[in-house]
């Protein structure tokens, strides 16, 4: 909610709250006050009036007492002569005239007989039963207000005794009065306000006087029976009054009650013991509390007016607060919209004024900083422009160069066209990349292999188009390209590399990456050539299967012959004679040769197919050598050959394919054993020389004639000198050895002289063999 209504509402609410509280408080206290005040007033008034009544009664009594002392009257009563009677009557009549309220005066003798009457009462009447006779025997008697039939009116009587010198009663004189003067005393309105009511009742609760609200004709007809009147005649209170008079009366005798009219009044009473009357005095509560009510009305009225004014003032005050805030708000909007010159510019000294001035300061600062920034930008723009100019100059210089280059380019582009034509006619996929590995040249075949014949690939990174992966691991396999770029040397693709075509097919590829160099030898790019090997692989697989099958087919009958010969020789089919044994042994041996030949042929075919598998593992050459020697033990013992082993201590393990190297050992050692006559010597040396391992196998055998040394590693070659002596031999062993050693990145050579012995040297790099993927292992002769 906005400030203005909020302030107004809050204040309005607070004000109302205060007013309500005030009203109630004041009302309460005022009423309390009024009550007490009224109580005091009424009490005082009542007591006063009661005294008045008493005095009135006394007055009346005195008057009659006086008359009772009249000599004339006494004379008459003493001697009732006519003369005395007329004198007495004259006296009485004269007295009658002094008071308007006197209705009649009566003189009664001591028997109670009316002897003289100034009024309607007949003389001679016997009124001895009347209280005004009976009660006035000793002293003056005030007779109650009552209705008298004889005079047909409400009256009161005062009787006084007439006594002789001796104090003996002679007669009673009675005065009968109209109650008017009595009424007047009671009905005086002094201090009664508007609703103050005074009246006198008798012990039967009958009105003895009229009152403000009771007409005279109600006298002695109407009753006032209330809490108040009852309390007045309460015996305890009556005795209190009789003993202590009105002193005993206090404020607690003045209370609020419902009067005979049913009206809520505050009033009290005063007992008049002389006549057993009660004076009642009440005031209407409404009149008593009227001031309070008036006050409340006034307060409410004032409140409303005040509220009205307060709202107006509140509005004004709120405006005074809100306006500068609105102005400030407006200002922020204007500034936010971009008008930095706008000032709220207030001169108020209050907090809002401070705020708006701060705001103006801030705006100013923003403006300044903006200007500052604008200046900087200008400065920078100027710098930039200068640089631009420089660049333009440079550009034109370059343009000149470029023109020259263009000319060159024309030449080269013609060359390039030539090149392109050549490229596209090459049967292999070719692409050229720059140092950023982005394709700068590509031929159709390369794109068609990967199924991207329609794509524009110039400028893209080659790895996005030509994805080389290893068939085995599915991981990227194009390090050969990066190697080529880095080393400036040609690198061959690793075996079993596939390229992933656009549609996800994997196509086996092979070939190489060659660096592109400019004059001076700096590598500026790389040419990658690859060709789809799918067909080759198929052929290869077919060849492999063929060889496998062939070997199986060839060996099965050989195995049969082998085993049956074995069984026969073992005597499993019965005992053989010497000759049978001999022939059988020949059969067995022949078979063994066949097996060996078949194995060797298969190995050779595998070597030629290039499908040798190389799985290097850390190998102990000493163990291999020992193992092979153990195999040949029988033969060694038979020929009584002396074998010396010279293994260097602490020879490290080399990563080799143990099976393949075993074959090397087998071939070389079995050759040494085979081609050394009885009691010959064989020496096996294993040692480490720099970063290579050397295997030296020396024998004291028949050696290799010089003439035939150059053919020793060729297929199926056996030197004549040994052919003579040993018919056994495939002529393939050394060919296989050479192939294996070459594959292991090693060297094999020999030194030999006829009949002097032969020494074979094998050198293998410590770094070991590189892993070569191949489907086949070589067939070992002995597992």
């Amino acid at each position: 909610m906005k400030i203005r209504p909020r302030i107004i509402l809050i204040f309005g609410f607070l004000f109302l709250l205060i007013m309500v509280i005030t009203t109630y408080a004041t009302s309460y206290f005022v009423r309390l006050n009024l009550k007490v005040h009224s109580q005091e007033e009424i009490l005082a008034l009542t007591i006063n009036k009661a005294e008045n009544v008493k005095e009135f009664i006394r007055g009346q009594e005195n008057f009659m007492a006086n008359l009772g002392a009249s000599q004339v009257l006494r004379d008459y009563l003493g001697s009732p002569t006519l003369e005395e009677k007329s004198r007495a009557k004259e006296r009485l009549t004269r007295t009658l005239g002094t008071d308007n309220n006197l209705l009649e005066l009566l003189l009664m003798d001591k028997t109670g007989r009316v002897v003289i009457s100034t009024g309607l009462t007949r003389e001679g009447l016997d009124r001895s039963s009347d209280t005004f006779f009976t009660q006035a025997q000793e002293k003056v008697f005030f007779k109650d207000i009552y209705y008298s039939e004889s005079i047909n009116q409400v009256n009161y009587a005062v009787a006084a005794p007439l006594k002789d010198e001796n104090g003996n009663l002679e007669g009673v004189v009675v005065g009968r009065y109209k109650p008017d003067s009595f009424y007047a005393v009671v009905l005086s309105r002094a201090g009664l306000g508007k609703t103050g009511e005074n009246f006198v009742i008798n012990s039967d609760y009958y009105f003895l006087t009229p009152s403000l609200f009771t007409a005279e004709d109600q006298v002695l007809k109407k009753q006032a029976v209330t809490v108040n009147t009852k309390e007045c005649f309460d015996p305890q209170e009556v005795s209190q009054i009789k003993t202590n008079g009105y002193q005993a009366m206090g404020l607690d005798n003045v209370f609020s009650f419902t009067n005979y009219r049913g009206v809520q009044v505050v009033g009290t009473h005063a007992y008049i013991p002389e006549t057993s009357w009660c004076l009642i005095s009440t005031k209407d509560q409404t009149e008593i509390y009227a001031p309070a009510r008036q006050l409340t009305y006034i307060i409410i009225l004032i409140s409303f007016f005040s509220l009205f004014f307060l709202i107006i003032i509140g509005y004004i005050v709120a405006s005074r607060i809100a306006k500068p805030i609105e102005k400030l708000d407006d200002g922020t909007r204007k500034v936010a919209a971009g008008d930095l010159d706008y000032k709220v510019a207030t001169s108020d000294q209050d907090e809002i004024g401070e705020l708006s001035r701060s705001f103006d300061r801030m705006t100013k600062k923003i403006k300044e900083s903006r200007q500052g920034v604008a200046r900087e930008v200008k400065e920078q723009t100027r710098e930039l422009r200068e640089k631009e100019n420089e660049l333009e100059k440079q550009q034109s210089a370059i343009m000149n160069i470029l023109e020259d280059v263009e000319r060159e380019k024309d030449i080269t582009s013609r060359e390039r066209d030539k090149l392109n034509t050549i490229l596209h006619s090459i049967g292999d996929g070719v692409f050229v990349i720059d140092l950023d590995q982005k394709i700068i040249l590509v031929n159709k075949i390369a794109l068609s292999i990967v199924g991207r014949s329609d794509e524009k690939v110039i400028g893209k990174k080659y790895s996005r188009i030509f994805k080389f992966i290893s068939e085995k691991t599915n991981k990227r396999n194009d390090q050969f390209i990066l190697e080529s770029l880095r080393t400036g040397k040609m690198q061959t693709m690793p075996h079993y590399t596939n390229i992933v075509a656009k549609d996800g097919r994997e196509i086996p590829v092979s070939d190489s990456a060659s660096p592109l160099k400019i004059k001076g030898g700096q590598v500026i790019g790389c040419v990658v050539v690859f060709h789809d090997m799918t067909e080759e692989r198929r052929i290869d697989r077919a060849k492999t299967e063929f060889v496998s099958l062939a070997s199986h087919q060839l060996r099965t009958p050989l195995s049969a012959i082998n085993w049956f010969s074995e069984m026969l020789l073992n005597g499993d089919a019965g005992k053989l004679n010497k000759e049978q044994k001999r022939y059988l042994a020949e059969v067995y041996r022949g078979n063994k040769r066949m097996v060996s030949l078949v194995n060797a042929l298969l190995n050779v075919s595998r070597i030629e197919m290039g499908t040798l598998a190389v799985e290097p593992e850390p190998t102990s050459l000493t163990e291999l050598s020992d193992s092979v020697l153990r195999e040949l033990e029988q033969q060694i013992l038979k020929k009584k050959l002396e074998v010396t082993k010279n293994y260097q201590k602490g020879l490290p393990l080399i990563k080799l394919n143990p099976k393949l190297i075993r074959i090397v050992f087998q071939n070389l050692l079995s050759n040494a054993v085979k081609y050394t006559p009885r009691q010959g010597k064989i020496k096996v040396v294993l040692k480490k020389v720099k970063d290579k391992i050397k295997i030296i196998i020396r024998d004291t055998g028949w050696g290799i004639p010089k003439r035939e040394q150059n053919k020793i590693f060729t297929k199926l070659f056996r030197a004549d000198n040994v052919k003579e002596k040993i018919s056994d031999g495939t002529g393939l062993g050394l060919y296989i050895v050479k192939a294996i050693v070459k594959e292991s990145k090693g060297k094999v050579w020999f030194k030999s002289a006829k009949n002097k012995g032969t020494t074979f040297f094998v050198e293998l790099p410590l770094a070991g063999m590189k892993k070569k993927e191949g489907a086949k292992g070589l067939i070992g002769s002995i597992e």
Partner: protein
Amino acid sequence: MMGQRKILIVEDEEMLLLAIKKKMEKKGFLTCEARSVKAAIKSLAKDKFDAIWLDHYLLGQGNGLDLLQKIKADKKLKKIPVFVISNTVSREKIKKYVKLGAVRYYTKAEYELNRIINYINWYISKK
């Protein structure tokens, strides 16, 4: 174990079957022959064997690898030691056989029957 040991010879070549069978019997084995995967499965279902002599190339559908796979997949059969004796020396194939759980691989032509059988005998008797 009481009683004679029984071996299933799975080999396609008749003449070789004969040799193996005779040699096995000499060593005290009871033998049963099968020349194809189908026949081998049949025999395996009928009888309890202490060892299996398995060749790679077989008659009919499937080869030694297939049979070995089936054997190893069968709860009742997978515990029977399988010896692969074949003339193929393809590294891949050997690896596969070993991976599937063949006890040993022998190249027929290079081994004396005696040795092979001795080994089998020794292997199953150590249980």
